[in-house]
């Protein structure tokens, strides 16, 4: 239940503006890959191109290839909706659907697509997904309560449960802990550790300690200046990036000299 991603010469544009330039990266299945870099370097933008979420913004487009186990996400006839059901995403701020109960939030991917599912299958899926998101014990007695009544950290884990309920191959996380307190952050980080046993996980983070703690490989993005495109500077094993980086800019960034 996990696939690899290979990106070849990817450019991302907003209208005429080149936001991210020339990214080549190979992401292994069943691993955690962290994207780090200063604000505005294009790491979140790039992450969103991996499941075509950038297309939600008007004028955003890409050039290049993103291969999911060898199949191009941007090939002719590919439906972004199909892409997104295989590559799930968790956002910066927890965003459970306010009109739905906890249970319905987990089943959202199934129900919103109007797929039929028997009551017992649905119960199994809810339990499995919430267990997978380390949330089952906390909410099993109040599945019919609104999801927005949970704490921030619980809400974020509910969003992760919602994402894994549609059985994706890859889970993208866009700064999933930046709106959470340290204890909730720890819970999410533990969860990421477990998720990698089944999924390919890609996480964008501002927190270098977090990248060092949870990821197997780290990619450092940087930007030459305002109005210039973001670039992938260095991509390597996390241990290498943080102890012995090849590039000067990477070393400056991870040692806290800028950014």
């Amino acid at each position, binding site marked *: 239940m996990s696939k690899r991603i290979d990106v070849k010469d990817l450019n991302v544009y907003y209208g005429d503006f080149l936001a991210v330039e020339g990214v080549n990266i190979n992401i292994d299945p069943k691993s955690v890959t962290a994207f780090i870099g200063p604000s505005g370097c294009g790491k979140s933008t790039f992450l969103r191109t991996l499941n075509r979420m950038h297309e939600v913004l008007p004028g955003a487009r890409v050039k290049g290839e993103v291969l999911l186990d060898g199949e191009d996400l941007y090939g002719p006839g590919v439906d972004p*909706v199909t892409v997104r059901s295989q590559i799930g995403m968790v956002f910066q701020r927890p*965003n459970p659907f306010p009109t739905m109960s906890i249970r319905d939030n987990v089943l959202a991917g199934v129900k919103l697509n109007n797929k039929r599912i028997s009551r017992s299958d649905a119960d199994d899926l809810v339990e499995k997904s919430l267990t997978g998101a380390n949330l089952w014990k906390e909410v099993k007695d109040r599945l019919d309560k609104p999801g927005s009544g949970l704490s921030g950290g619980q809400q974020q884990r509910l969003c992760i449960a919602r994402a894994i309920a549609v059985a994706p191959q890859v889970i993208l996380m866009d700064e999933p802990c930046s709106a959470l307190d340290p204890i909730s952050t720890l819970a999410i980080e533990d969860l990421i550790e477990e998720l990698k046993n089944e999924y390919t996980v890609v996480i964008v983070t501002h927190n270098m300690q977090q990248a060092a703690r949870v990821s197997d490989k780290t990619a450092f993005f940087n930007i030459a200046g305002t109005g210039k495109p973001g670039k992938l500077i260095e991509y390597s094993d996390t241990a290498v990036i943080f102890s012995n980086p090849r590039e000067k800019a990477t070393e400056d960034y991870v040692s806290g000299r800028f950014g």
Partner: protein
Amino acid sequence: MPQLTTTTPPAPAPVKRSTLTKNQLPGWAMWAVLAGSLILGAALSSLIGFHIATWALFSALIYVAAGYFVTLSVEGARKAKDRFATNLVYAAFIVALLPLVSVIVTVLAKGIPGLTPHLLYYSMNGMTGTVDNETVANGTPVIGGVYHGIVGTLLITTWATIISVPIGLLTAVYLVEYSKGGTLARAITFFVDVMTGIPSIVAGLFAAAFFGLVFGPGTRTGFVAAVALSVLMIPVVVRSTEEMLKIVPNELREASYALGVRKWRTILKVVVPTAISGIASGVTLAIARVIGETAPLLVTAGFVNSINWNVFGGWMATLPTFIYRQLMNPTSPTNTDPSAQRAWAAALILIIFVMLLNLVARLIARIFAPKSGR
């Protein structure tokens, strides 16, 4: 807005005059000025033949002027100006309240006596001037009612809602979810604004002109009226729905897309349900706005005395046109009291409808708002 009491804090009379309270009028000063003004006003008023209206008017003028000069002499020009402006604002409020209270009191006082079960369950079918003349001569209760008008109002408003709500909702969805700020979207936004400003009589003329050209001159049915009301209702629905859809956080849309849900399903199952309380209350307010419209109905629905359940054929009475006709062309030109009584009772019913709709709108907004409770 917290009350900004910089002018006259109700300071307890200090034993020692501190620098913070010197040159300040005591709390009772303005009451004294008011009492003086009332007495002086009464005196002036009785000079030209005492009347409560002139008494109030003179007293108010004297109070505002005296308040200014008293404050000026003790507290200085700046405080005096502040006092003057404050009094004017209060005066504006009272002046505004008078007619509005008068409207409500009049409708209640004149409407309640006529509000009988008979009025609600009978139409004006067969009612002639002779009947009213006999009623007055014999002192028997007024007969003839507004049943046909209530039926017409409800039917026409329902049809107007059936036409307006889908068009209004879909247009708002287009503007918020699909348009990319292009020429078409800007044109629609602009013309929706234009539509909000169409005088209701012009909307009626349009519907009459349209159906007149298509189905022959003088085509007047409930449906023509419903079309006229839709022209007035659509922009209100579009506007309120647009506002409600705009405040649905983008994060919810993205969360849905990221689950592999299609855009139209996202809109129907996530965006609209999240905004539904606001949308529903907006629609209810739109209905409340058109249910009392009179002018477009006069030129589109015609007027009859009997019940007509068919919006597609025949003229149709409504509450507003009933009120208008009973006042302008009383059933009996010589004895107008029965007609006036029916008109005011109908006005009361109409206001009750409008107020109920407003109340329902608020309830909907409260009950169906997304719950955040633990």
